[in-house]
C-alpha cells in the first residue's frame, strides 16, 4: 500500500467557504475512511455542492484545509484528481459531440481510456454511446456522467446527487455498482437529499444544514431519524385496530377518520405491521417526507438538538 493510501480518503479541518450573508460552508471537520461509502445528506442549498467543489479544488477555501489521501485539494489538485472520479451535480453540455467522443475527449485528458471498462459500463446502463449528446434524454446524460466518473476505476468517487434523473431500475443498478466499487477497495463520497437513497448504500452519513455539519451518524442512527407518513384504509366491515396502532412502537400522530388511519412511523414498520395484521387492509400508502421536514422534526431552526437514543 502506498504511504498516502494510509491517510484517510478525505479529511477536512475547519473548512470554510464564506459567500457572505450566511451562505456557504462553515468550519467543516470531516473524516472519511478508505473503502467507506459516505453519504452527505442535506436539503437543497445546504452546502453539499460547495463541499464537493472544495474537495475537487474547483473553489478555494476562505480558511481551513481539505485533503484527499493526504494531498491538499487545492495546491495538489492535479495529483488529487488522478485518484478521483467525479460526477458533478449538473451534467455539462457537450452539444454535438457523440457520447463516445465525450468519453474519448475526457479520457484523453487522463492519458487514455480503458475501452473494455467503458463498454461494460455502457452496456450495464444500456447507454448508446453512438448518439449525439444533444439527443440524449436527461437520464442518458446522467448515465454518461456515471460512465465518466467510473471509467478509470478511481480510488475515490465524489458524486454529487448521482441518481437524479435516473429511473428506478437504473437507480438500483447504480446502487449495485456502488457496492461493487466499495468491495473493490474504492471510497465513495456521495451527496444526496434523499434519506432512503443514502440508507440503501452508505456506511455512514453526514448531515449538513445551512452550511454546517449537524451530525455524522451511523446507519442505525439514520434509521432512527427516518420517518414515514402512512395512510391505511381498512375494509368497510373491519374494525379499525385503534389501540394497537396507537400503542405500536415508533407510531406517532395517529388520526382516525372512519376507516382511514393516518400516522407517522419512526424507524421500522415491524410494530405497525403487527398492530394491523388481523385487520383487512384495502390500501396502504407510505410516503417519505422531505429532508427539510425531517430536520424540522428533529432539529430546532437555530440549534440542533441531540438525536433520540
Amino acid at each position, binding site marked *: 500500500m502506498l504511504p498516502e493510501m494510509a491517510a484517510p480518503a478525505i479529511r477536512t479541518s475547519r473548512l470554510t467557504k464564506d*459567500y457572505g450573508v450566511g451562505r456557504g460552508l462553515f468550519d467543516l471537520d470531516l473524516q472519511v475512511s478508505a473503502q467507506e461509502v459516505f453519504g452527505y445528506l442535506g436539503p437543497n442549498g445546504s452546502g453539499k455542492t*460547495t463541499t464537493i*467543489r472544495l474537495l*475537487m*479544488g*474547483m*473553489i*478555494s477555501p476562505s480558511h481551513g484545509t481539505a485533503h484527499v489521501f493526504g494531498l491538499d485539494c487545492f495546491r495538489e*489538485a*492535479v*495529483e488529487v*484528481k*488522478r485518484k*478521483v472520479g*467525479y460526477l*458533478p451535480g*449538473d*451534467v*455539462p*453540455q*457537450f*452539444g*454535438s*459531440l*457523440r457520447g*463516445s*467522443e465525450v*468519453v*474519448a*475527449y*475526457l*479520457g*484523453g*485528458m*487522463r*492519458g*487514455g*481510456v480503458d*475501452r473494455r471498462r*467503458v*463498454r461494460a459500463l*455502457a*452496456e450495464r446502463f444500456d*447507454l*448508446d*454511446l*453512438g448518439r449525439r449528446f*444533444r439527443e440524449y434524454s436527461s437520464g442518458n446524460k446522467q448515465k454518461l456522467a456515471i460512465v*465518466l466518473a467510473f471509467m478509470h476505476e478511481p480510488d475515490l468517487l465524489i458524486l454529487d446527487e448521482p441518481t437524479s434523473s435516473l429511473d428506478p431500475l437504473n437507480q438500483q443498478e447504480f446502487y449495485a455498482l456502488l457496492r461493487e466499487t466499495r468491495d473493490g477497495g474504492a471510497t465513495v463520497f456521495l451527496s444526496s437529499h434523499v434519506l432512503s437513497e443514502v440508507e440503501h448504500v452508505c456506511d455512514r452519513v453526514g448531515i449538513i444544514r445551512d452550511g454546517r455539519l449537524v451530525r455524522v451518524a451511523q446507519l442505525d442512527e439514520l434509521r432512527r431519524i427516518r420517518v414515514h407518513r402512512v395512510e391505511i384504509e381498512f375494509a368497510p366491515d373491519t374494525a379499525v385496530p385503534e389501540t394497537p396502532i396507537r400503542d405500536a412502537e415508533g407510531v406517532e400522530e395517529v388520526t382516525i377518520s372512519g376507516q382511514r388511519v393516518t400516522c407517522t412511523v419512526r424507524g421500522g414498520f415491524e410494530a405497525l405491521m403487527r398492530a394491523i395484521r388481523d385487520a383487512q387492509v384495502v390500501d396502504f400508502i407510505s410516503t417519505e417526507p422531505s429532508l427539510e421536514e425531517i430536520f424540522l422534526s428533529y432539529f430546532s431552526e437555530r440549534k440542533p438538538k441531540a438525536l433520540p437514543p
Partner: protein
Amino acid sequence: MIAIVFGLRLGRWGVVGFSLAAFVSTLIQTVGFYQIAGHTPGERIAFGNSILALASQFSALFPPPIRPDTVGGYVEFRGFHPLAILFAVWALASATGAARGDEERGIVAAALGTGISRLGLIAARTIAFAIGVVIAAAAAAAGFLVGVASGHESVSPLGVIEASGLLVAVGLSCYALSLLVAQLAAVRVATAAAGVLLLALFLLNSLSRVFDSLSMWRWLSPFRYYDLSQPLPLGGHFEARAVVVLVGVSVVAAAAAAAAFEFRDLGSALVRPPRRASRVSNTVSGAAWWRWPVWRGVFERRIATAVWAVGMAALAIVFVSLTRTIVQVLLSIPSLLPYLSIFVRQQVYPGVLGFTWFNVAQLLFAAMAITYVARWSAEDSDGRLELALSQPISRAAVVVERVATLVACALVIVAASGATLYYASHVQGIDLNAGRVVAASLMLIPFALVFASAGSLLAAWNPRAAVGLLGAFAFASYLDTELGSIYKLPLWVQDLSAFKLFGTPLLTGVDGRNLALLLLLSLVGLASSILAMQRRDVGA
C-alpha cells in the same frame, strides 16, 4: 409585456455594449473630423477629395460618400456605415441566440411552459431586439450630436433621425432574416447558415458596385436599401420607400419565422433529412486525436475550421479580383499617379491588396478570436470547464491548450487563405513576392494571439462579460490605429493596438519590433490569464 422585458433582460449586455460602441464611434469620428479636416473651405475641399480617393479602395465595403468635406458626409461614411455592419453582426448573434441558443439552454421550453404562444414568443423577442437597436441607434445619434456641438456647428435634426432610423431598419431586417434561417436549420449550423446568408446578401450588394453583372440581383439585399439613403450630409437624400421595404422585410421574415416555429419540434429544424437507422454502440471513439493535447481541440473544431478556411480563401479570391478593378480605376485618375508612385513605390497591386485584403483579414481574425473566447466563456457556464478540471490536468494547461488550439486552427486558415491569395493573384497577373505573402499571412497568427490572450484573461476573470469586453477591446484597438495619429496619442498608446502593430507586411515586410511587441502583448495576456485562472473559483 413580461416576455419583452425578459427578452431585453437576456440581451442587456448586447444593448449596453453596442450602444456604447455606437456612441463612442460616432463621437470620435465627429470630433476627429474637426481635428483633421481643416477650417477653411479650401482645406475642407482638399480633405474631402482625399477621403473620396480613400473611399474608392473601400467600395467593396461601403458606398461612396457624399460631401465628405462636411461633418455629416464624413461621419456618415466613417461612423454610420460601419455601424450598419456592426448592427448586422449583432442582429445575427442575437437572433440565432434567441431562436436556438436559448432553446439549447431550455429557456424557450420554460417560456412556452408559462403559456405564451410561439407566435407571442417570437414577437416578444423581436420587439425586445427592436427596442435594443433603437437605443443603440439613439446612442449613435447622440455621439454625433455631441461631437457636432464640440465643433460649434449645427446639423439638421431630421437627417440625424433619418440616419438612426436607417440603422434600426437594417438591424431589424437582419435580425428577422437570421431568425427565419435559425428556424429552418439544425441547431449546430443555425448561426453559420444565418451568417452565410447575411454575408452573401452583403457581398451581393457591395460587389454590385464593382461588378455590373450583380447589379440586377442587388434588390434582394437589405443592405441595398440602406445604401439608397445618405441623409446626414448637406445635399444628402433619404429614401423613405427603402425604409418601408426594410421594415416590410422584417415583418414578413419574422412572421415566416413564427410560422416555421409553429410547425417544428423544439430542438429540431423545420426541415429534417431522414435519419439512417443505426445500431446501438457501446464503444469509445477510436480517433487517436482525442488523446493528444491541442489536437483534440483542433479535431473537435474541424468543421468550423474548415468553414473558416474555405470562407477566407473565397474572400481572398474576391479581393484579388477587386484589386485589379480598383487599381485600374485609381490609375485612370491622373492626379493620383504621383501620389501612388510615391506611396507604394511602383508596387501598386501589392500595396492595394495588402491594404484591403489584410485589413479585412485582421478584422476576421479578431472576430475568430472572439468566437473562441465566447466558447471558453460558455464552457465555464455550462460546466465543461468544471468537468475538464476534474481530470488530472492543471488550470495552466487548460489555458495554454485553449490558446494553442486557436493558434493551430488559425494556422490552417492562414495556410488556406495565403495559398489561395498567392495563386489567385498569379492567375490575375499580379505578381506577389511569395516570401512576403507567407510572412504577411503568418503575421495574422500573433495578431490573433493578442486578442486570444486578452480574451483568455477576460474569460478567466469574468466569463459572463468576456465577449462584450473583448469586443470593446477590439473596437478600441481598431479606433486606436485609426485615430491615434489624428489625436496625436503617445506612441506607446498607439503601439498597444494590434491593428497598428500588424503593419503592412505584404508591402514592406514584417517589422521585427512590431512582431516582438505583438508576441510580448500575447505573452503578458497569457501569463495573466494563467494567474487569474489559478486564483478563481470554478463553477461557483
